[in-house]
C-alpha cells in the first residue's frame, strides 16, 4: 500500500484490507510523508504482526514506493502481491477480486474502472481522455491491450514481482510497468472492479501536471520500446 500524506484515510484502508483478507500481510510504504501516515497505519491494528509499515526517509514518488513493496515481497518469497492505493479509492473487496483472478493463470491482473459494465467512480472526463490516449499508445508500441492503464490496483504473480522488483519505472509508472511485463512475455488481464473517489487529501497529479504526466508517460513508453530490457538499475535477489 503506497501512501504519501494519507493520514486521513490510511487507517481505514488497512482495516478494510485486514477484514477482507485476514490471511494476508499488509505492508504500508510511507513515501516520506510529512504527516502522521505511518503512525496512523501502525495504530489502527495494534500489535497485529500482519500489518507492517516501511518508512522511506525521503519522498520517492509512487514508483519508488511500490518498488519498495515489491522488493520486500521478493526478499521474503511471497507468492502473490496486490498493490492498493493508500487514499481509499480501492475497496478491499476489489483488491480481493483482482488477487483471486491470478488463479486463472495471469501474471498480472489490473483492476479496471472501464472494463465490463462496472458503475462507480470513473474520474473526470479530461482524465478519461488522457487514460484512453495512453491506452492507445501502449497498444501502438506493442504493449498489452489495457483500458485502465493508470490503475493503481494491480495484483502480481511471483515472477512478475521478481521482474518489477529490479526494474520499476520512477515517476508515473503504471503504464510503463505494463509494457515491461508484456514485453517480457507475461500475461496481463484486466478485471472490472468498482472504485471510489478519494475521501481525503489530494491527488498527486494536478491540473497543470496532467500535460507533463502525459508527456512523461508517452516518452517513457517510447524509450522503453527503443532501449528494451538491457538497462537495469537494481540488483535484488530472492532468498
Amino acid at each position, binding site marked *: 500500500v503506497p501512501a504519501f500524506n494519507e493520514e486521513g484515510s490510511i487507517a481505514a484502508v488497512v482495516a478494510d484490507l485486514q477484514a477482507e483478507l485476514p490471511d494476508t500481510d499488509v505492508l504500508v510504504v510511507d513515501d516520506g510523508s510529512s504527516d502522521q501516515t505511518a503512525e496512523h497505519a501502525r495504530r489502527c491494528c495494534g500489535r497485529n504482526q500482519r500489518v*507492517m509499515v516501511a518508512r522511506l526517509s525521503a519522498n520517492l514518488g509512487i514508483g519508488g514506493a511500490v518498488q519498495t513493496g515489491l522488493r520486500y515481497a521478493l526478499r521474503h518469497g511471497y507468492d502473490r502481491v496486490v498493490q492498493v492505493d493508500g487514499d481509499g479509492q480501492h475497496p478491499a473487496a476489489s483488491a480481493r477480486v483482482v488477487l483471486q483472478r491470478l488463479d486463472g493463470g495471469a501474471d498480472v491482473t489490473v483492476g479496471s474502472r472501464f472494463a465490463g459494465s462496472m458503475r462507480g467512480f470513473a474520474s473526470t472526463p479530461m482524465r478519461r481522455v488522457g487514460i484512453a490516449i495512453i491506452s492507445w499508445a501502449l497498444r501502438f508500441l506493442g504493449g498489452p491491450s489495457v483500458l485502465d492503464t493508470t490503475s493503481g490496483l494491480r495484483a502480481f504473480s511471483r515472477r512478475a514481482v521478481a521482474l518489477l522488483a529490479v526494474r520499476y519505472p520512477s515517476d508515473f509508472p503504471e503504464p510503463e510497468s505494463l509494457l515491461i511485463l508484456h514485453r517480457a512475455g507475461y500475461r496481463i488481464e484486466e478485471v472490472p472492479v468498482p472504485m471510489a473517489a478519494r475521501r481525503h487529501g489530494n491527488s498527486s497529479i494536478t491540473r497543470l501536471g496532467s500535460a507533463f504526466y502525459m508527456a512523461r508517460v508517452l516518452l517513457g513508453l517510447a524509450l522503453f520500446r527503443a532501449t528494451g530490457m538491457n538497462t537495469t538499475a537494481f540488483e535484488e535477489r530472492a532468498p
Partner: protein
Amino acid sequence: MNFDIQVVAIVGSIAFLLLVMNDLRGRRLQPQYSILWLVLAGATLVISLWRQGLEILAHLLRIYYPPAALFVVLFLVLFLLAHHLTREASHANQSLRAVIQDCALLRLELERLQSKTETSET
C-alpha cells in the same frame, strides 16, 4: 578587444582560478571536477592574456569575427557540462532511490526483530 575589457577579463579569470583553488583546498569538489574547472579557468586566463590566440582560433574555425569563436566554444563547453551534470544527477538519484528503499526495508526488519525478542522475553 580594448585594453579595459582585457584587464577585466584577466582579473575575472584570476578570481575564478582562485575560487576553484579555494574549493580544492576545502575539498568541496571531487577531484575530477576540480581538474575540469582548473582547465577551464586556465583556458579563460590564457585567452584573456594572449589576444592573438583568439584570432588564431577564429581563423582555424573560419570565423570572421573572433569574439564569435569565443561564443561558439563557450556554448559548446557549457552545453556539454550541463548535460554531464544532469546525467550525474540522474545517476545519483538512482543510487539514492536504492539506498532509501534498502534503508526502509532494513528498518522494518529491525523493528520486527526487536518486537519479536520483546515478546519472547516476556
